[in-house]
């Protein structure tokens, strides 16, 4: 009887894993269609295509962490099983749950704590500080990404490389989605689009803003993910590899409301010529709309 219920339990666990995995795979299979354009790159159950010059570091970190975690899991698991068997209650032997009071294990624990402190203060924080405060100096493109429920806006500073002021009071969802001010000279040549265009092989500094709730700007092929927080302007940077022109998926990685699932956009990695053509197209003065 006992063995039977164990089997049922294992079957349920296995079933959940299979179902979960297939739904993940299915979600990835429908992703490109929903964006309305053909999405480049390989997406699957493992890490997607990497088009960022720094992406390999993130991948390496993910891989190293997994190997270490697997090692820890197996090691501790074996030790746990060993203890369960060795110290179990059996005829002539009582189970013992009293903790060890030996000195060596205490020293070991202190050593582990020191090791982890060195990892955190000696390696993690300096690396993070560098990533977050040192920005590329090789004439990067600058783009503002403004998240809203449930869409992305991309604000380009134009030829003067200066962003014009935004005034939320004059936002018009049809004609002026970001509240750009006509009287700000810095904003004269700005333009806003729902598409994200960058030039291949060039550094990009992105400032991330939100109009309403917390969103997260996620570009899997760049290994870039940063929360968009209302009231804050958070800069991040990346650089695409040469010869990576194509269209890639942008998603929102922070559950932000009932249409979070369809909050996506397309990142177009352009050659310089393609980029110039796109800029010309979006900055052309609009013609009066006439119904045909």
């Amino acid at each position, binding site marked *: 009887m006992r063995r039977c219920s164990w089997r049922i339990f294992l079957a349920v666990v296995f079933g959940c894993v299979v179902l979960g995995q297939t739904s993940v795979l299915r979600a990835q299979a429908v992703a490109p269609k929903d964006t309305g354009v053909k999405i480049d790159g390989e997406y699957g159950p493992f890490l997607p295509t990497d088009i960022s010059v720094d992406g390999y570091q993130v991948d390496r970190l993910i891989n190293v962490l997994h190997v270490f975690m697997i090692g820890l899991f197996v090691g501790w698991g074996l030790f746990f099983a060993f203890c369960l068997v060795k110290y179990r209650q059996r005829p002539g032997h009582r189970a013992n749950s009293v903790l060890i009071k030996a000195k060596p294990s205490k020293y070991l624990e202190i050593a582990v704590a020191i090791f982890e402190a060195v990892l955190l203060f000696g390696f993690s924080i300096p690396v993070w500080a560098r990533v977050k405060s040192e920005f590329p100096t090789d004439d990067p493109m600058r783009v503002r990404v403004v998240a809203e429920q449930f869409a992305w806006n991309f604000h380009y500073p134009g030829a003067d490389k200066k962003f014009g002021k935004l005034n939320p009071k004059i936002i018009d969802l049809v004609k002026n989605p970001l509240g750009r001010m006509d009287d700000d000279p810095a904003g004269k040549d700005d333009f806003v689009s*729902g598409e994200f265009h960058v030039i291949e092989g060039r550094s990009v500094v992105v400032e991330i803003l939100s109009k309403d709730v917390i969103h997260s700007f996620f570009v899997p092929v760049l290994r870039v993910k940063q929360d968009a927080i209302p009231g804050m302007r958070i800069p991040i940077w990346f650089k695409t590899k040469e010869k990576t022109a194509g269209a890639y998926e942008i998603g929102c990685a922070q559950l932000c409301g009932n249409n979070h699932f369809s909050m996506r956009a397309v990142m177009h990695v352009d050659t310089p010529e393609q980029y110039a053509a796109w800029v010309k197209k979006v900055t052309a003065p609009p013609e009066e709309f006439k119904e045909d």
Partner: protein
Amino acid sequence: MQKTFRYGVLCAFAATLGLAGVVRAADDGVIKGKVIFKGDTDKFKRSPIDTSKDANCKKPIGSWDVILNKKTDPITIKNVVVSIKEGLGDKKFPPKTEPFKLTQKDCQYDPHIIAVMEDQPVKILNGDDTNHNIHFLPKKNTEENFSQPQKDEVTGKELKFKLEEPFKVKCDVHPWMGAHVLVFTHPYFAVTGDDGTFELKGLPPGKYVVEAWHEKFGTMKADVEVAAGKPAEKDFTFEPK
């Protein structure tokens, strides 16, 4: 017993017919006219809408807050709602049973003005191959907010509004998408189309206050007297600056 019942039913039927005849004979008043635009048409050009947020929205669309019918003479205004504001007394009207169809097509609402009676079903359809979210933003009625991720012309969701008021609808996925809902307690309302005309039919003779509503130009009221057998004519002229 059964015979009496049958006679009773017959009598009731005849009486209903007779009554309907009387009501119909009386309620044949008509108010008709057009909504005229006076001013500088260049100030109210339709601008193209940037739909680049969703590559599924391929067809070019234009702003809809002001649509002038430039081919009519004089120039008229589309999407003005003309309705009876006062003069119907306490009369109660049964809701229209025919559902009002609201379609999301090419990432805009068709039609742009949803003029319905209280408790009239509003059927919402998604005609696009993309996800739409319908967010009704009333003050008095119950707020509604749901998505329609699948292209589906057949089923769709049905809603009913209970209280008279004008309010907005928007799509949270395509922020430019917007429409207006106007709910009435009576069936006497009309929306101007490409010819800028309106017609309110089946009115009992009497004195009425008629209102014209436009989302950008505001409202305008007029007193109209309806006599039996002769349509009353009334034009509204908006002169926006």
